[in-house]
Each structure stands twice: as structure tokens, then as C-alpha cells.
């Protein structure tokens, strides 16, 4: 069938990298068609930077940031951003934290000043601190009421042991109850340093004007003093293979959960290979695991395999939802599918299907200023300066033999931690 005439594929926009005098990174990328500008502030201050006593403080701090700065009253930031038609949010991960604002282009300059002020000069008022602690404890309780989340937390705890990836980002309840504003201020001073921060801007950047660099030098970010102590590298992860079984109240269907370790995010070529492999295995009805376990044998309601891109080592997490009595069969078939892949490399057609799914998923995500800002911001934060085209090129470089040689062995059944969660 002849293809319809289509317009030539435009080149992907190029991220522009800059470094302020104090070492802070800035990356901006012009998306002239986008209806909003996304400002995304990143800092290498995720839960992996916490000491044991600081459990949950990185995430708690993210909440407290929105309680105002020296110049902004509690709630004032939200009010001003939203009154201009924008919105904001934040997320704390194991490795990093980011705060993002989506704004109509004409209001993006105002938001830039406000965001930097908010994040870099948090007030950490004692009364607000106690109130917000309640909110964080409610967030924890809400997640504890989802038995699936409890099961995943247990999987990570047993698989990653004392590594930060085995600890809850929300923190331990007892530690949360003991936190004090002074300790949080100290955590902020220690980690929110220019050389550990990156500001990403994506959208119609013309609205920001030509003197952006100059203004940023004079902003809160440009005026931030570098840290005195050297930043330790991400602590190495050594996932522990094993098996466990867990009975959970309120669980309605059993879960088979498995975790494997792949190379860390610094190895972006491997990350793309991991995307390709998990897609080949579990994305779509014709993927190997879905086809075998759900479509043909009908052992599961669903089976998913997610690649979590992390600095100390990526985690591949499998979740199969099934009846309790099917668990042994499910585990056996997952194992069989993985062993088959070890024995024979994937066929080219199968690989091409996965390449197109990953490639299109990536291209679709570039439609949204927020996800572009997050991608280039996270990359720049960790000193990866590839452009938006690079992942698509890496994707093409992987072939069946390379996947089988380099990545498939890492997903061997015996390298996984495997948790069976069953209704109590």
C-alpha cells in the first residue's frame, strides 16, 4: 500500500547548555509550538543522600519548600503561579528531586524568579513544619492502604537491603515524627549547592528574553555559594537475589514481583537496550511474556515489566497479577520465557517491533514541554549532555546478538529477587 505523502520529518530541537559562574547548570530548549513554558529545577538531593536519622527528609523538604521562602508567604507561590494560569508540582526520587512549573509563555519570567526563590530560600517555619508533617504522615498512611505498594516496598527492601533504593522515599514513620526544622535546614544547606543543581527550561523560550544568562547570574541560583565538601559518588548497588513470600491483608489478587539490576543511568546506551528488552518482553499483546502468560496460558490478569532508570543501577521490576493457586505456574513460565531468550537471540522482526514501540513512545513524549524539560534537565543534572536525537540512535545500534550477549544474561531468573505476595 503506498504511503500517503507526508511532510519531511523536522529535526528535533537542540538543548542549549550553559554553566553559571558558581557552577550551576542551565539547559534550555526552544519549542516554539508549545502552548506553555516548563521551568524545571533539579537537584541531586533525593532520598539516597539521607543518613539513617534523616529518613524521609528529602521528600519532607520538598513539601516544606511550598510553605514559603523568606520573601514568599506560605501559599503565595501557588497563588501567584495559578493566578497567572500556571501550575506547579514536585517529585522526590531516590537520586534527585525536582520542582516544576508550567506557565503561559508571557508569564514565564515572573515564575522563574519565584521558583528559584522558593526552592533555594525555604523558610522552614516551625509551626508550618508540624502541620506539614501531618500531611506527610497522611501520605504515608494512604500508601500503606494500597497493598500493592506495600508489596513493592517489601520487594525493594529485601532486594536492595541497606541501599537507599531499599528504603521508602516517604521515610520511616518514627524518623518522620522525630524530624526538626534545624536538621532539615542543614540537609538543604548540604545538598542544594550550585554544582548539584540544574535549571531546565523547555517551551517557547523567546518569551524569556535574550538576557537570560545575565539574569540567572544575578538570581538566587547564580548567587548560591558552592559547597565546601566534595559530593560522594552514588553508592554502588548490589541487588541480592533471593525469594520470599508475604501475606498481605486486603490483597484481592496474588502478585508475583521480581527485581533485577541493570547498569546505572550513566550508561545511556544500556538504558536504551533495557527499554528495548523490557518492551520486547512485556509491552503489547505480541510481547513474549504477555503473549505466553496472559493471552495463551491465561494465567495472569496482567504482567508488566518496568525499567526504572537510576544512578546506582537501574532496576527492572516485574509484576504479575494472578490467582494465588497460579503463582507456581506463573513463576515457572516467566522463568521459561527468560531462559528461551538466553538460548536464542530475538528475531529481527521482533526487535524491530520493540524499536518502533520505544522510539514512538519517546517521540510522543516530546510533544509535552514538561516531559522534554524533565528529560534534558535530568540529563544535564547528571552531566549527560546528549541531545534528543541520541537515544533514537542508540536504539538503532542495538541488535539481537548484542542484546543477548550484554543484557539478557543480567535478566537471568537466578539473578532476580522474587517476592510472592498473597492475600492473608
Amino acid at each position: 500500500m503506498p504511503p500517503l505523502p507526508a511532510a519531511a520529518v523536522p529535526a528535533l530541537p537542540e538543548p542549549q547548555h550553559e554553566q553559571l559562574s558558581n557552577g550551576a547548570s542551565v539547559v534550555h530548549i526552544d519549542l516554539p509550538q508549545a502552548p506553555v513554558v516548563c521551568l524545571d529545577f533539579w537537584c541531586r538531593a533525593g532520598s539516597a543522600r539521607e543518613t539513617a536519622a534523616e529518613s524521609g527528609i528529602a521528600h519532607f523538604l520538598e513539601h516544606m519548600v511550598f510553605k514559603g521562602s523568606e520573601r514568599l508567604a506560605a501559599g503565595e507561590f501557588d497563588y501567584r503561579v495559578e493566578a497567572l494560569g500556571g501550575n506547579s508540582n514536585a517529585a522526590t526520587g531516590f537520586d534527585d528531586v525536582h520542582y516544576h512549573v508550567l506557565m503561559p509563555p508571557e508569564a514565564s519570567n515572573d515564575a522563574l524568579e519565584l521558583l528559584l526563590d522558593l526552592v533555594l530560600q525555604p523558610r522552614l517555619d516551625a509551626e508550618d513544619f508540624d502541620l506539614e508533617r501531618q500531611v506527610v504522615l497522611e501520605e504515608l498512611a494512604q500508601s500503606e492502604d494500597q497493598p500493592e505498594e506495600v508489596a513493592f516496598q517489601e520487594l525493594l527492601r529485601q532486594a536492595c537491603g541497606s541501599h537507599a533504593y531499599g528504603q521508602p522515599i516517604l521515610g520511616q514513620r518514627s524518623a518522620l515524627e522525630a524530624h526538626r526544622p534545624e536538621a532539615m535546614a542543614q540537609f538543604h544547606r548540604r545538598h542544594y549547592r550550585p554544582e548539584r543543581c540544574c535549571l531546565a527550561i523547555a517551551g517557547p523560550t523567546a518569551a524569556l528574553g535574550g538576557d537570560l544568562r545575565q539574569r540567572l547570574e544575578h538570581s538566587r541560583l547564580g548567587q548560591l555559594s558552592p559547597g565546601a565538601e566534595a559530593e560522594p559518588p552514588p553508592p554502588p548497588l548490589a541487588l541480592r537475589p533471593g525469594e520470599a513470600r508475604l501475606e498481605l491483608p486486603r490483597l484481592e489478587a496474588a502478585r508475583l514481583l521480581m527485581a533485577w539490576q541493570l547498569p546505572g543511568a550513566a550508561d545511556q546506551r544500556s538504558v536504551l537496550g533495557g527499554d528495548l528488552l523490557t518492551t520486547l518482553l512485556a509491552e503489547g499483546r505480541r510481547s513474549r511474556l504477555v503473549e505466553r502468560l496472559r493471552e495463551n496460558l491465561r494465567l495472569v490478569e496482567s504482567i508488566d515489566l518496568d525499567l526504572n532508570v537510576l544512578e546506582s543501577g537501574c532496576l527492572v521490576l516485574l509484576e504479575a497479577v494472578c490467582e494465588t493457586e497460579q503463582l507456581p505456574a506463573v513463576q515457572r513460565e516467566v522463568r521459561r520465557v527468560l531462559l528461551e531468550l538466553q538460548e536464542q537471540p530475538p528475531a529481527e522482526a521482533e526487535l524491530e517491533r520493540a524499536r518502533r514501540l520505544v522510539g514512538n513512545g519517546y517521540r510522543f513524549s516530546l510533544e509535552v514541554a514538561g516531559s522534554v524539560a524533565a528529560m534534558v534537565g535530568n540529563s544535564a543534572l547528571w552531566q549527560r549532555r546528549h541531545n534528543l536525537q541520541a537515544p533514537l540512535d542508540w536504539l538503532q545500534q542495538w541488535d539481537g546478538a548484542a542484546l543477548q550477549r550484554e543484557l539478557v544474561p543480567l535478566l537471568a531468573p537466578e539473578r532476580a529477587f522474587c517476592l510472592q505476595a498473597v492475600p492473608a
Partner: protein
Amino acid sequence: MSAPLALAARVEQGHWPLDCPLWLLHRPGAPILSAKLWMRGGSGSDAPGERGAAQLLAGVLSRGCGPYSADALADLVEGCGAGLRCEAAEDATLISLKCASDDAATLLPLLLQMVRSPWLVEDQIALERQLNLQTLQRQREDPFQVAHDALREQLYGSGPYGHDPLGVESELRQLGRDALQRQVEQLGAQGAVLVLAGAIPDGVEQRLLAGLEGTTWAPRPPERRAGPPGLKAGGLATSPDETEQLVLMLGTTTTPLGAEQALALRLLHCHLGIGMSSRLFVALREEHGLAYDVGVHHPARLGDAPFVMHLSSSAERAVEATRELLNEWQRLLEQPISPEELELARAKFRGQEALGRQTSSQLADRQALVLGHGLPMAFADRSLEAAAQLTPEDLHRAARTLLTQPCLSLCGPATALRAAETQWQRHPLSASAA
């Protein structure tokens, strides 16, 4: 504030011989195409005794159609790295395609093949039915889902909006090929619209029509027609569960998208539940630290849409959480919001509209919904203009007309339920239900 937002670089109506309006929203840039075929008659049209049929059919449509078996269809779609989904919501069955524009010629015929020549293979129906039954069961793990299910029953009884689109277990179990075949005949007969957005190649009409393959399809254009009604019963529902938190949902049934006071109610929704400066977020979370998640659920519907305030709070704070939530509702009935609050709500309404147009899919989705409701293409922009004219008194009038006799649905441990119930019984909102 009322300058129109850009919809697309060029909007045109496609030319084809079907009574299903075809709209092309051309957007330059990424070579991506999104298509949404909206057909009136979702789970709200499930026949008595066949609740779950619309969703079951939706799932089965992509399990074989035209020349393609289930496997061949999955090979084709996944081989292009595309997404093809069909889902039934309360008001409509929606087929969504998202693909690279280069693959449009190959994939566009599938839309009408799914509608006109689905295979409805017994074995694939059995699989889809089993998956839906399992999902229904697993949803009970979520206390929000439990509270929501109970609230839905309070608000709509056994009416068309009274069940989860996935269905009712005992009825879903009985559904077979005959029920689905009857449904297929009806697809589009109550109104249908197709919206394409993104980088749209020339000649898409012919590619779409290629999917008919000698069959005919006689859809009708969408019309303005009243959708399912809600009850105004008031009352309390409690679902005991051994959770840490108490989930609270307070809601009532209101009015369809595009109806007289719907816009005023939408602004109240923005005021109460959109963003961190919203009334519920500030009052319940920032001032009382009662909850992490608070918000308003008010989807666009053809019939009497639900309007629900919700939060979840530690079981031991049940009394305070219940009182504060009920007071927030009562406040809407007793006093108008301030002009400043209305201004903020308008900014959010406009902001939401702009943010909802970022991707081709979002754009196609929103326009298909609006057109499917029998509303004009410019409805969103007209609503932005009309919002500028509304006053705090207009919103107050809408609240007093539409937000009467709310129902409270709770899920949580028995002690928390008892404590919350006491608060409810003391409150004027429950007395008005008597």
C-alpha cells in the same frame, strides 16, 4: 482574559459520505497523528441484566476485525509502534489511535473495520471477560474505589450511571457473543464523531473508508439530547475496611456539560479543587493538615454529572475530617465566593484549557467529547468568554440549585465510621436529606 486560545493551525471538516462528522485539526511540528472515534452509548447504555457489555465489546473489538485475526491485528499495530485502544466510558465507546503520521495510511482503515467487521471470536470474548472480572475483583483493594462504588450507587441507584463501566460481576459472567453482536449493530446509531489531530496527511478520507470493505455503516451525527438522570436522595453509606485511613466522599448529581448552570459549576470546581491554591487544598490540607490527597471529581457527562469532594484522613481524625468536609460543602450553599476567588477560578479554568491542548491526543480527545455532546467546535472558547461574564452570585445560585442533598460515602475501620457517622447526623446537610 477572553482572547481565544489557539486550537490548531488549521481546522477543517473532512469530506466523506458518512453521517458521522469528520474533523481534521492540523498541527504542524511532530509527525504524529491522533484519531478519536467517539460513539454515543457506553456503559450507560448497557441493557438491564447485561451490565458490562459495552466495555466487554470495546475490549473485543481489537481482538480481530476485517482481514485480521487478533494476533495479526496486534502484529500490525505493535509493529508500527502505534497505540490502538477501545474503551467504554459511561456515555460513549471511544476508539483511539495514535501513530507516526507515516503509518497513517496503513492503520486508519482499522477504525471502521473494528466498528463494522469485528470477529467476536468466542475464545477471545472469554479471555476479555475473564480479565474484566479479575480487574473488578482487584479494584476492591483500593479503599477509594470501594467508597466510590458505594457513592455511585447512592447517586444513581440502578440507573444507567449506577455501575462501573467494567460491569456487574454476576451479569458480566453471563455475557456472550449474542449480546455483543446486538451491540455492534448499534455502534454509532446514537451519534458518532471522528476527530483527527496532528500532522494529517492528505487523502485520509479514502484510507478511513477503505475500512468499510463493501460493508455499510449508517451512523448519525451527534445531537443535543438529555442523558441519564441522577437521584437526589441524600444519605450515608459506610463500607467497613481495615485501613489506616478513612476515605470520605461527599457528592451529588448535577447537570450535563453545556447545560444552563454547568459553567458556573465548573468554575466552582476550579475554585475548590484545582491547584494548590484551591479552597479544599488550603482549608483541609494546608490549614488543618488533614490529608495528602484532597480534591473534586466532576467529569463532563451527557446526563446529570456527579460533583464529588473527596479526601482521606487518618482514622483517628475521622471526626475533624468529616466536620471540615461537611462545612466546606455547607459554605458553598451559604455564601458566595469573593470576587478575588472568582478571578482565580477563571484563571485556572483558562489555564486548564491551555494545558489540555498540549498534545494531539489531548486536543482530539477534548474536541471529540465536545462534538459528541452535540456542542459546537468553538464550545471551549465560548465557555472562556462566558466565564468572564459570570458573577459570584451566579456561582452561588448554581450551588444552591445543583449541590443540594449530597450523599456521604465512607470507607475505613469501624470505629472511624462510627465517629464520622455521629458528625454526619449532627450536621445540617444530613438533616436536609430527611
